């Protein structure tokens, strides 16, 4: 299983994805690889192709709940002019290039402040704790 955090920790709660990956990494769960980067790109398809289950973790704006956990399928749509890919596009690259279709989820955690600055807001920390508890239960189910 791969947990892939996305975001820029220099933009306050945009660092939720990276924080989730870092905190999980410290537990050294068997069979779980944790990584994080500013954003997803084509080379992440390689990592996704090497795992059966992939969980993308990203900060989200406008959520009414602390987090959501939704399936992600491969899809080739991507924004114009962007250097980055979305989770669905990364999965599409993995499927197209390597013929791999890992079971994928997006853990979207509600962020409250995306301005320049260090550290998560208190409310984002609370959302992260709830999201991580959920994810750890999910991981336990996957590994058992």
């Amino acid at each position, binding site marked *: 299983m791969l947990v892939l955090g996305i975001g*820029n920790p220099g933009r306050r709660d*945009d660092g939720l994805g990276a924080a989730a990956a870092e905190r999980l990494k410290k537990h050294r769960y068997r069979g779980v690889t944790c990584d*994080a980067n500013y954003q997803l790109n*084509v080379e992440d*398809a390689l990592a996704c192709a090497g795992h059966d289950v992939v969980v993308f973790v990203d900060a989200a704006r406008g959520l009414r709940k602390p987090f959501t956990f939704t399936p992600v399928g491969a899809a080739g749509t991507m924004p114009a002019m962007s*250097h980055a*890919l979305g989770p669905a596009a990364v999965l599409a690259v993995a499927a197209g290039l390597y013929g791999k279709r890992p079971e994928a989820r997006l853990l979207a955690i509600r962020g409250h402040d*995306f301005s*320049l600055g260090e550290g998560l807001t208190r409310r984002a920390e609370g959302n992260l704790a709830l999201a991580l508890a959920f994810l750890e239960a999910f991981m336990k189910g996957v590994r058992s």
Partner: protein
Amino acid sequence: MGRKITIEPVTRVEGHGKVTIRLDDAGKVTQSRFHIVEFRGFERFVQGRPYWEAPVLVQRLCGICPVSHHLASAKAMDVVVGAGPGKLTATAEKMRRLMHYGQMLQSHALHFFHLASPDFLLGMDADPAIRNVIGIIALDKDLATRAVLLRKFGQEIILATAGKKIHGTGAVPGGINKNLSPEERDRFLKGPDPLTVDRMIEWSQAAIDLFKGYHGKNKDLVDGFAAFPSNHLSLVRKDGALDFYHGCLRAVDADGRKILNDVDYQDYLEHIGEETKTWSYMKFPYLRDLGKENGWYRVGPLARLNTCDYIPSPLAQKEFEAYKAYTDGKPNNMSLHTHWARLIELLHSAEVIKELLLDKDLQGTKLVKTGRRAPEGVGLVEAPRGTLFHHYRVNADDQITMANLIVSTTNNNEPMNRAVNWVAMNVLSEKTEITEGMLNRVEVAIRAYDPCLSCATHAVGRMPLEVTLVDARGRVIQRKVR
């Protein structure tokens, strides 16, 4: 009935900009603008912070080219700690160069294969749903695989030199905080295959051949699309060689006459001005010698190959000679030739990476030097998108009191506006219907400059591409979002 077309290219961390094309009642273009609609001051954010934090802090600007900001900031702070240009240890300078050329390799590969090649290989009129890397996979799986691995190789070089994927810490004021272990070096030299530097050189050459093949069959388009004369600016090495990490400022005009030559970039303010316009948050830099009206310039691959005299690596030099011969040695002012120039730089980056990997100085242990403290420093690098300026003042308490950044995309502000205007006048004007393909040509014109709007606007944006057609009275006639 007059109309206005608005294109809003906005994505996760790349800022918030849009294109507005205003048409009169006859459908004739009366005005076009590429403008920025959001601004947050990064320069103010770093004020009051200790100077040694700057090389890490500046990576918050965006996730596209953090290495360029990291190095430009570190170079400025080298001056502050008395270890400015030429004073770093050999290990420190070469480790930084390796980091930077790794960044150039991954960025240029990403831009060409992911953003530009779909326009060429799938066509500017292709459905946007497939005019992307997914479409390239369907068309040519080997090519797409190379794109992924070139990018990955560059990213691995960055990780080995900067230490971390996010907020790398490799460059510090006065040097670097790690060297390259023999194990890391051997991995890049020997693999596992195909992730070797020799393979990257081979694939970079193949990418140039791909472009040249397309060019050979589509000369009118590639040569004529958004072509316009301009000045060009970049760093060049003291002897005129192409150098992405360090050099002097050189600017040439559209005919190759030198406007600036051998200028120490610590004095950039004497030569570069920045004009503000009410309709854009992005400034308009210009060469003071030529004034606001005529002093605008291009930066980036096209500009660099116009300002330098030669490329100091054999394979890229050979390609450079063919590239220069195409314009009889004169500056190249064809926007789409930026892709050709970018691929020659991709090859040069791969060659330099190999040269550096074979250099024993990378295993040296003298990493940091300091000297006499200075209150001010300027650091420049040639980022993938062009010249990047970082300028700081630091007080006696080691706090940053002033920061001024001119990023590559800002340097290319006027050229991007000119490119959009070319498309507006030559493709959109007086047409009865504005098609998806026509609008994509606006994107193609901007894309040649590979803009990164988060640096230019210092903003986080999250909007899709929006195209709006508005009449002279402000009524929306057509709106497209993607």
